[in-house]
């Protein structure tokens, strides 16, 4: 039986063998692996991309004080981004499951329609949730748009839900009982985090400070795009996106304000994307 860390190691070596660069998590709080620049910028231009990485993902509103065995305010995604999409990618994915000890022949593997959309990134994709014996273990997406622009070539993003896969493999009913590795359980490492961060996100976060920071990082992002450096400007997008998530979990955003916040994040993200494309895509005019 594989420990949590062994599952990660297996996935890393599988995708490394498939020619992916195994990059590291990006060092900012974020809601999903898609925010890692390897994917965000990786999907944007025609430059080939093959990356795999673990990404800690924070969803403040999903925290349950460590009480719910299936819900976490912070968890890990294992993410693969491939462009161009290799043919037979779904078979390759099945092989990766086998590598971590899930033989598709012994299980019920289903591909359930599930399209993905990120309003804050103006991004959308088409794909599936992959169900293993009824449990959603992976989100499989062909990106179609980013910054509301069609993407061609298309990238495929595979997001493994590591905790769910581990619970299935280890036959555990609670995420906190997972064997992490090094003689520790997932609970040993994460339970107090869950408890304290739930308190922070739902009860004690200083909303005035958070919304001030939102405004300031948004302004900083705008200033940086004017200076034509998309990478530091992108950090501002990631920051305000997480600040927005925290404010929302804290109940500090009304329905009408919510739409305005989403628009503000999206506008900055779009500016950064356009800037990045201008700087990095082969220039049609020069080529001609």
């Amino acid at each position, binding site marked *: 039986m594989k420990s949590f860390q062994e599952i990660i190691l297996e996935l890393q070596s599988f995708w490394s063998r498939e020619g992916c660069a195994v990059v590291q998590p990006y060092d900012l709080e974020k809601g999903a692996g898609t925010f890692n620049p390897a994917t965000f910028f990786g999907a944007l231009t025609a430059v080939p991309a093959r990356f795999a990485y673990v990404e800690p993902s924070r969803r403040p509103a999903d925290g349950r004080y460590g009480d719910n065995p299936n819900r976490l305010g912070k968890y890990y995604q294992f993410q693969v981004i491939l462009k161009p999409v290799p043919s037979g990618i779904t078979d390759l994915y099945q092989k990766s499951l086998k590598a971590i000890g899930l033989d598709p022949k012994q*299980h019920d593997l289903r591909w359930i329609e599930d399209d993905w959309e990120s309003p804050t990134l103006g991004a959308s994709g088409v794909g599936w949730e992959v169900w293993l014996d009824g*449990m959603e273990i992976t989100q499989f997406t062909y990106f179609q748009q980013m910054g509301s622009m069609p993407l*061609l070539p*298309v990238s495929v993003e595979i997001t493994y839900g590591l905790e769910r896969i581990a619970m299935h493999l280890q036959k555990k009913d609670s995420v906190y009982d997972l064997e992490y590795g090094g003689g520790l359980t997932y609970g040993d490492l994460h339970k107090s985090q869950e408890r304290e961060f739930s308190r922070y996100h739902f009860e004690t976060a200083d909303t005035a400070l958070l919304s001030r920071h939102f405004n300031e990082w948004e302004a900083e992002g705008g200033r940086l795009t004017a200076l034509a450096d998309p990478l530091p400007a992108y950090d501002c997008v990631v920051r305000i996106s997480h600040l927005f998530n925290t404010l929302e979990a804290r109940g500090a955003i009304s329905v009408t304000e919510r739409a305005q916040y989403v628009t503000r994040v999206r506008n900055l993200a779009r500016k950064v994307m356009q800037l990045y494309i201008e700087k990095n895509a082969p220039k049609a005019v020069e080529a001609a």
Partner: protein
Amino acid sequence: MSLKKKKSPLEAMAFSDGQIPYEAGRKKASSPPRKAPARDFLLDVHTEPLPARFVAPVLEQLRTGAAKWLEGKAPHGEISVSGTLRHLIVTVKSVSPKGHDKSEKFKGPKEQAWKLPDGKFTPAAEGFARKYGLCAADLKPEDGILYAEVHSKGEASSALLQAMILDLLKSLQFPKSMTWEPSGFKFGRPIRALTCLLGDKVVAVELAGVKSGRAVYGHPVLAKAPTVLKDPSKHSAVLRQGLVIIDPAERREYLLKALELTTKKTGGRTEDDAELIDETVFMVEHPVPILSKLREEHMKLPAALLKLVMKKQLKFFPVMARDGSLLPYFVGVRDGLSCGNALVREGYQRVLEARFNDAAFFLGRDAASTLESKLPLLERVMYQKALGSISQKAARVESLVSWMGSHLRHTAPIDERAASSAARLVYADLVTDVVREFPELQGQMGGVYARNDGLDERVALAIEQFYFPVAAKTPIPATPEAAVVSLAGKLDSLSGCFAAGLIPTGSSDPYALRRQALGVVRILLEKQLPLDLEQALEEAVKLQPVVVPGPGKLSAQLADFVWGRAQSLFEEMGYASDEVRSIREGALKDLPNAFRRLAAVRAVRREPAFESLAASFKRAANILRQAKSENSEPPDRALLQDEADFDLYDALVGAEGAANDRIVRGDFEGGLKSLVAVKPFLDLFFEKVMVMVEDESLKRQRLALLGKLARAFKRVADLSEIQS
């Protein structure tokens, strides 16, 4: 199982050379093509998993698309389609090796303009002929016009089919399509392989970076190597060995049988949910049901909640006893084989239990406080920008319920206190955790919480059934109180949305107003409520927080909208559209009565005299319309003149009396039959006298007589609407 044999794909396809003359076909390829036999065509588009809901509609497009494309192009036999989430398959039997020869005629201008007097052709004529590969002398005159006639031999079928495949696949409409490879081709999901065969030959096409071939791909997990197919005849057998049942009807039958067998020992059977069955048929290629148990502790959760979690969240089939109650079992349908079933069952149970634990947790939290105590939270839930919060909507529904209660007090009294308590609480479950998680359970959960709060059963039931009917054929609220509260909710939504300009268009009806209007009609009809809908709509419009420039006009527009639903419901029941139109007047003032009037028209229409009566009646109505006579004063017998006038007058008075006796008893058929008795007198009247005479007084009296006749009939129906 052939899958497990270690054979190379080429060996695996060593079929007996049976039905299709493979060798013969080859020999004949060198002889004139005219003699080549007809061959079967196969197209198998192998894709990554298509969403279940895409497949059946796309197969239908393929069937009609192929038939339309081939029509007139090449002789062929039967066209059939089949498929799964990973295969879209078209077969065409006996395609002739060559398409139809074609003769086409192209029209040139007139002969004089083309022919010079010396009999030679103008250069323009030569040019026209050249366009079609002819000389001017080949042009054929016909009625003074020259035509170019072009004959072409039929194209080889393989070339035609190449074009057909590309046209068909490019024309398919998916609910949502995607791109995945550099050409930017759009399809429901990525295409992995194209198997295209005409007899033993590959029909070569390339689409989205995929070249057609003869390889066939079985189940992605269970089938090993692709099989190389020699010709179309073995295609479905090969896929069957690869654990794919390609025919949806066969797959359904297989699934239903397997479900029955699996549940036998439970003494119950899986719920007959057409939607889930359809979905499952297109979610698996080879269905294998697995029976699993529910935990006793979870059986305490509301059955609706259990079923919803099983069906909607996990696509599991609940198992029901004969009396419709839930048994502690469920069936998950896996795709493929039963190896590792114990493991899969364990997985199914674990995932379901996790969902049930979540649901139980929410339920416990919701039930910890009363519905009453949740009401203040509704102030913060927006219903619609212009129409305010849910709390405001609830207040409007409550006022409307109380208006309806007093309106019905003498005709169909209800327990007004119970109805008004229910109206107050009807939206409270919208702020519960369970409903936030499962919006489909709105209402049903409200009923659960109301009983938990110890409320009167009449109140709980009205809350539970507030959103009834949820679909065209599902039940309406059971009690009069529940019916009235449900009506009020719907009338408020209808008038609110119309007042805010959110009027449904042909394709878009985001607030499901058509369904709600149909709900109103069904409730009134099935509960026999004599509610004046026109007044109720006016009342509902008045309560809206929107300033409406012409409230009267808006109410009329709403009435027309609701009438539209009633009309289509009646037509669905088999009433002719002219019959339905004939009862439009006053129908919404009392819909159950309108329905009885409709039935009367239908019954009396069978009488021999009816058609000609309708014609005479139409004549009377036309005269009244042309005279613009809206005068409803009764005719004065003394001022009439001819015998025909008096006869009609007397017959009408008699018939009206007889009809009235019946109509007040609700016997509209008898009433209408009594009125039909005036027919000979009306005919005589039209034969003997003129209505539009010079004598103003007499004209007025005759118009008044016809007006009386029209009014008498309109108590049942406006016969001028009836088409002969």
